[in-house]
C-alpha cells in the first residue's frame, strides 16, 4: 500500500485513532480539519472518550476544541441511553423461548466494552435463528414495532434476498431495530456458517440476550464493512475491528481460532484485507504471519486500495469532490450489488429501481 500521509485523513485522523497521544504534535489549525473529518466519519465521540480519559492529554488540547469533544460525548451519551431504552423494550417484547443475539453496537454497549465508548449507534441489530424469525417478528409487531417500508418490492427484496427484515421502529422512538437471521446477505458468495455461529454464542449475564463469540464478532464486523455496505464513509467499522482485536486477540491460539472461523464462514479473504488496513492505518497489533501468504490477486488488491483510500476514508470537499473519489464511490456501489446478488437478480433489481426512480411516486 502507498503511504497514507498523502491522504487528508492520513495526516492526523488515522494517527490519532492509532495512538491518541499523537495529539501532542497537533496545532489548532490541524484540529480544524481533523474535527471535520472525525465528525464526518462519526468517530468524534470515540476520539473524545479516548482523549478525556487522560486529563494530562486533555490539557494539551487547544481550548477551542474542548467544546467539540464535550458536545460529542454528550451526544453519544444520549444515543447510549436510547439504545438502553430500546433494549429494555425488546427484552419485554421478545418471547422467552427464542435465543436473541445482539450484534455490533448494541452488543458492545450491553457488554460495556471500553473501546466502544462514544460510538453513536443508529439502530439496534438483533440476530435470531431463521426458524425463530417469524415468531420474533410477530412478537415485535404485537409490541408496536412497525416496518419502515411498506413498498411491496422492498419488502420482498428484504425477505427473499437479504439477511435481515426491513428496519422496524416503534413510532416516536429514536432507534430502529434490524432483525437478522444470519450475518451475511443470503445471496452473496460469502455464506456464514449458521451452526458454527450458534455454537459460539455467549449468554450475557443478567440479561435475556446473547452475543457472538469474540472471533465471530470480528468476522461479522469484517463482513459488514466489506459486504454489507458500499464502503463509503465506513472507517468506523474498521475502528470497531481494531477495538475488538485489541480486546480479544491475546495469543497465537486466538488468532488460529479467528482464521479457522473466518475460513468456515468463507470470509478469509475479507479478513485478510481488514487485518491489512487495520495494521496500516490504525497500528492494530496483527502478527506478521496473518497477512503474508494467501495474498489476494493484484487486481483485487488494487481495487480494494482504491475503495478504501478514496471511499472509506472521510474527506473535506470544500472545492467539490475529486474525480477519483466519485469513481471509487461508484465502484463501491457496483461491488456492493455484485457481491450480494447473482447477475440475473442484480439485473432485475437495477431495472426495478431504475424504473421506480423514473416513475412518479404515488405517496
Amino acid at each position, binding site marked *: 500500500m502507498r503511504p497514507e500521509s498523502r491522504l487528508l485523513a492520513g495526516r492526523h485522523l488515522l494517527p490519532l485513532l492509532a495512538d491518541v497521544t499523537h495529539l501532542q504534535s497537533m496545532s489548532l489549525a490541524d484540529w*480544524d480539519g481533523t474535527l471535520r473529518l472525525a465528525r464526518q466519519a462519526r468517530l468524534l465521540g470515540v476520539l473524545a472518550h479516548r482523549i478525556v480519559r487522560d486529563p494530562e492529554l486533555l490539557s494539551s488540547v487547544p481550548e477551542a476544541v474542548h467544546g467539540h469533544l464535550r458536545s460529542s460525548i454528550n*451526544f453519544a451519551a*444520549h444515543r447510549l441511553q436510547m439504545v438502553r431504552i430500546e433494549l429494555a423494550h425488546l427484552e419485554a417484547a421478545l418471547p422467552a423461548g427464542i435465543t436473541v443475539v445482539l450484534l455490533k453496537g448494541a452488543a458492545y454497549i450491553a457488554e460495556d466494552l471500553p473501546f466502544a465508548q462514544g460510538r453513536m449507534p443508529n439502530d439496534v441489530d438483533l440476530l435470531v435463528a431463521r426458524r425463530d424469525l417469524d415468531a420474533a417478528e410477530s412478537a415485535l409487531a404485537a409490541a408496536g414495532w412497525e416496518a419502515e417500508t411498506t413498498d411491496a418490492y422492498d419488502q420482498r427484496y428484504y425477505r427473499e434476498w437479504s439477511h435481515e427484515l426491513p428496519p422496524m421502529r416503534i413510532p416516536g422512538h429514536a432507534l430502529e431495530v434490524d432483525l437478522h437471521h444470519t450475518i451475511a446477505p443470503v445471496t452473496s458468495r460469502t455464506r456464514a456458517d449458521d451452526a458454527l455461529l450458534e455454537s459460539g454464542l455467549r449468554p450475557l449475564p443478567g440479561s435475556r440476550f446473547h452475543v457472538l463469540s469474540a472471533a465471530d464478532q470480528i468476522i461479522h464486523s469484517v463482513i459488514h464493512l466489506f459486504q454489507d455496505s458500499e464502503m463509503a464513509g465506513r472507517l468506523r467499522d474498521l475502528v470497531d475491528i481494531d477495538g475488538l482485536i485489541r480486546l480479544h486477540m491475546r495469543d497465537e491460539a486466538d488468532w488460529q481460532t479467528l482464521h479457522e472461523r473466518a475460513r468456515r464462514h468463507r470470509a478469509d479473504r475479507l479478513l485478510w484485507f481488514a487485518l491489512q488496513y487495520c495494521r496500516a492505518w490504525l497500528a492494530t497489533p496483527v502478527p506478521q504471519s496473518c497477512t503474508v501468504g494467501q495474498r489476494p490477486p493484484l487486481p483485487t488488491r488494487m481495487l480494494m486500495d482504491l475503495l478504501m483510500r478514496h471511499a472509506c476514508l472521510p474527506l473535506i*470537499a*470544500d472545492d467539490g469532490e475529486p474525480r477519483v473519489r466519485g469513481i471509487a464511490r461508484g465502484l463501491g456501489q457496483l461491488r456492493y450489488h455484485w457481491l450480494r446478488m447473482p447477475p440475473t437478480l442484480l439485473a432485475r433489481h437495477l431495472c426495478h429501481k431504475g424504473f421506480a426512480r423514473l416513475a412518479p411516486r404515488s405517496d
Partner: protein
Amino acid sequence: MSSSSRSSAEIAPRPATLRDGGVWIDYGACVVRVRSPIAALADQIEVVYRAFPIQQQGEFADYHVSIDFGRGLRRHLRPTCRFAIDGVEPFEPFPAASALPMFEWGVNWCFAQRGNQFVLLHAGVLARDGRAVIMAATPGSGKSTLTAAMMLRGFRLLSDEFGVLDPVSTELRAMLKPVALKNRSIDVIREFSPDAVIGPTFRGTRKGDVAHLAPDRASTAAVRQSARPVLVIFPRFSEGGRLELKPQPPEQAFSRLAFNSFNYALLGPLSFDAVADVAAGCPAYELAYGKLDEAIRCIDELLAESRGAADAA
C-alpha cells in the same frame, strides 16, 4: 440591496473574499467560516455584521459553511441558493435573493445540532455589568422585538435566539447574531430608535417578512465574555395593554425554560441540573407589556432589585 457606508479602517467582506477563502465570524460561543459566490450576500453581511471584527484568515472555525447557487437548468430561470455544512444540506433551496436569511437560519441549525456542550435555551439574553436577563421565548411573546429594543436602550446583547447556558461554569455565553425581526416588528424597531441599523427586508420568506438588526459595538466587543444569569423574564406582548408583572414560582420557571429548549432531552441530567440552578437562583416573572419602554424600565428595576437582594444576602 442597500449597503450602508462603513469607515475605511474596517475590512469589509468583499465579494471576492467571501467567494475565495471565505470569512471567519466570531459569534462568541462559536466561530463560523462562511464561503459564498453570491455577491449580494457579501453586501448584506457588510450591513448586519458591521460591528463584528470579520477575519479574512482564520486558524480555526467551529463550523465551515457555504451558500452556493442552486444546481440544474432551472437556476437560469429562477436562481436559488443552498446552504451546506461539510456536505450536508439541511434545507430545501431558497431564492438566491434570500441568501442572508438562509445563512442566518443555517448557522442556527448548525449550532442547535452540534452545540451540545451547552444547554441551548430558546431565549434572548441581555446583560448589564455582566448580570444577565434571560428573555424566554414563547410563540407570540414579542421576544425578538423586546430584545432588540433593550439593546437599543443600552443593554449588552448576548443572543436573540439561543440562551447558551454552560453547564460547567453555569454562566451564559454569547451567541451574538443579527436579530431577526419579523413582519410588523421591523417598522416598530425602526421607529423605536434612530440608532437601529436594519438590513434589507426579505419579503414572503417561510417566516413572513424578515429583516435583521445589526448588533451594536458594545455587544460585539464583549462577545467572548460570559454573563451570570440573575433574572428570568417571560415576556408577553399585548397590543395597547398595560404593564403587568406576575412572579413565577421556580418550578414553573424551570418547566417553561426546560421544555422550550433545543436540547434539554438530549442532555439529560446535565441540563436538568443546569436549568434547575437557574430556576432556583433567579427570580422569574411573566411580563405583559404594551409599550417597549415601559417594559425595559421595569426590567431595569427588577435587575436593580436583584442586585440589592444579592448584596443583602
